[in-house]
């Protein structure tokens, strides 16, 4: 059995088990299964048990907060005060964060327990979790396959029931794609909904944090804690956060759903298309109205995204210089040698590629041809969505063009890896919220369906996913080896 976040809340409230007991259960499962999956970089046993003891004390006094006593895992990109925060990079292998990310502060405020920090693609750059200095993560459904990326460790941990929920970040699909490939639910909220303070930056105009869990119901609980205005994030949205859980029962009667024709074109595996069609029929039966729409600039999203993300990453990652924290090379002869070798030794190949492309795109004489051009196309891509939302409430399609691929299958071809993000990255360019939920299997591997909402309509996404999950049980499936 794999209790979800809501079920654990109820169990703790009813005194069926204590936070210490359930935390010990998860720590034991992590000890048993992590060697095969490699989804945790750090397991924080002592912190977890201390937090669980305090949670039990609070529960006994009737002082429980929203998530008191619920164990969770955090992507190793969120700074955690006093705990190693590596971003799966050699350059931060010795980095003990001196402060908490706002998201981590929020989970502490609401009483959650931290089980550990999860593996990921280095600096969140990747779609397979193979770009980690701690090694690849295995997909619990087939350990020869990738879990997706970049938040692959968090997704694999939830899929294998090593945690009931986990945090991730999504710059071009890094929550939705691993959620799809691991058969769980994940949501990337609207840009600005979740504070980026203390999230190690990759592409600042694209990055958003969000949760993974089995169900939309659980994601609603976790997103509630993560969301809200934060003055320490200069692009945080000054907007009230709705009661995500409260809106879950609204149903989809009369909901207008658009299917972008471009998302069901040639690149999509036919077996995935068939699974998605079946899920669309379920939503029709629940009263949704489905119609075709067009997002004509979809195929521009990959080149546009990679210029913007790489330009922003080359700028963001200039802070890793071997001077104030992180890896420093031995015996530098001068300052330039210190920078170059500390960075050359500290960063992996994919990170170096992206820094170099970004540096090139921003260099004198090329700015207009690359960065400015990409920002113009970014507006066209956003306008496609705005037009679509004039006639529909929600957009639906596949999350990925294929199911989980074999470890190593694409690792020598960066461009074929980038094409995995075709359905997910345009949302980051537009800043829109999106989520992935499991809707079936192809050859034993999970298929994810993506829902795309209008700005700040996380409620609509969660409600639609919840309605579907009331009449399906794909989100409750657990791979046999981890039951």
């Amino acid at each position: 059995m794999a209790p979800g976040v809501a079920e654990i809340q109820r169990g703790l409230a009813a005194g069926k088990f204590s936070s210490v007991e359930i935390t010990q259960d998860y720590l034991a499962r992590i000890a048993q299964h992590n060697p095969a999956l490699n989804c945790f970089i750090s397991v924080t046993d002592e912190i977890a048990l201390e937090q669980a003891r305090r949670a039990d004390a609070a529960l006994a006094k009737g002082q429980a907060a929203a998530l008191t006593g619920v164990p969770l895992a955090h992507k190793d990109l969120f700074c955690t005060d006093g705990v190693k925060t590596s971003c799966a990079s050699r350059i931060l292998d010795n980095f003990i964060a001196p402060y908490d990310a706002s998201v981590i502060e929020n989970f502490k405020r609401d009483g959650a327990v931290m089980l550990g920090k999860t593996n990921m693609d280095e600096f969140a750059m990747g779609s397979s979790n193979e770009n980690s200095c701690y090694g690849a993560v295995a997909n619990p459904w087939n350990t020869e396959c990738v879990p997706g990326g970049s938040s692959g460790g968090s997704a694999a941990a939830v899929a294998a029931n090593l945690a009931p929920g986990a945090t991730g970040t999504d710059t071009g699909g890094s929550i939705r794609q691993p959620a799809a490939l691991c058969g769980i639910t994940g949501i990337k909220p609207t840009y600005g909904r979740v504070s980026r303070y203390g999230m190690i930056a990759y592409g600042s105009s694209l990055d958003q944090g969000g949760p993974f869990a089995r169900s939309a119901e659980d994601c609603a609980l976790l997103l509630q804690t993560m969301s809200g205005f934060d003055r320490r994030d200069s692009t945080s949205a000054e907007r009230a956060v709705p009661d995500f859980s409260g809106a879950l029962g609204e149903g989809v009667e009369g909901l207008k759903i658009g299917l972008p024709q471009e998302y069901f074109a040639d690149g999509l595996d036919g077996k995935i298309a068939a699974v998605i069609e079946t899920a669309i029929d379920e939503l029709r039966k629940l009263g949704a109205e489905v119609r075709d729409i067009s997002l004509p600039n979809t195929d521009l999203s990959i080149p546009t995204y990679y210029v913007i993300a790489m330009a922003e990453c080359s700028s963001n990652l200039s802070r890793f210089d071997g001077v104030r924290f992180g890896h420093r090379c031995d015996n530098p002869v001068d300052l330039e040698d210190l920078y170059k070798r500390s960075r050359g030794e500290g960063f992996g190949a994919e990170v170096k590629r992206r820094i170099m492309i970004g540096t090139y795109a921003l260099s004198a004489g090329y700015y207009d041809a690359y960065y400015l051009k990409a920002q113009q196309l970014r507006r066209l891509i956003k306008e496609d969505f705005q037009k679509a939302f004039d006639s529909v409430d929600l957009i639906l399609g596949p999350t990925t063009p294929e199911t989980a691929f074999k470890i190593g299958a694409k690792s020598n071809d960066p461009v074929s890896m980038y094409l995995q993000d075709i359905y997910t990255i345009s949302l980051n360019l537009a800043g829109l919220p999106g989520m992935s939920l499991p809707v079936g299997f192809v050859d034993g591997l999970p298929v994810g369906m993506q829902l795309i909402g209008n700005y700040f309509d996380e409620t609509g996404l969660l409600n639609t996913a919840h309605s579907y999950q009331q009449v399906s049980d794909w989100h409750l499936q657990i791979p046999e080896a981890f039951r």
Partner: protein
Amino acid sequence: MTLKTEDVRNIAHLARLHIDEADIEQYVTDLSSILDLVDEMNRVDSSGVTPLANPLDATQRLRDDEVTETDQRDKFQRIAPDVEQGFYRVPKVIE
């Protein structure tokens, strides 16, 4: 777009990245293929379109210039590779 070996060396220098000589050719191949992908942007005429920097077209939020952070130098320097008397040490910069 095909880069030359010399281009890759220059970009690596601009990015302050040491690249092993043996790896340069692989970077030439990989970066050129990424730039080919990126060049697809030129299929569309976007002249006159206002560039989008923030997805919500938000502008920079201003705040009062007040001190809100406390001095945590000791804590922050505990994780530094080399410090002395409260300063970060680097190789000599000025002769």
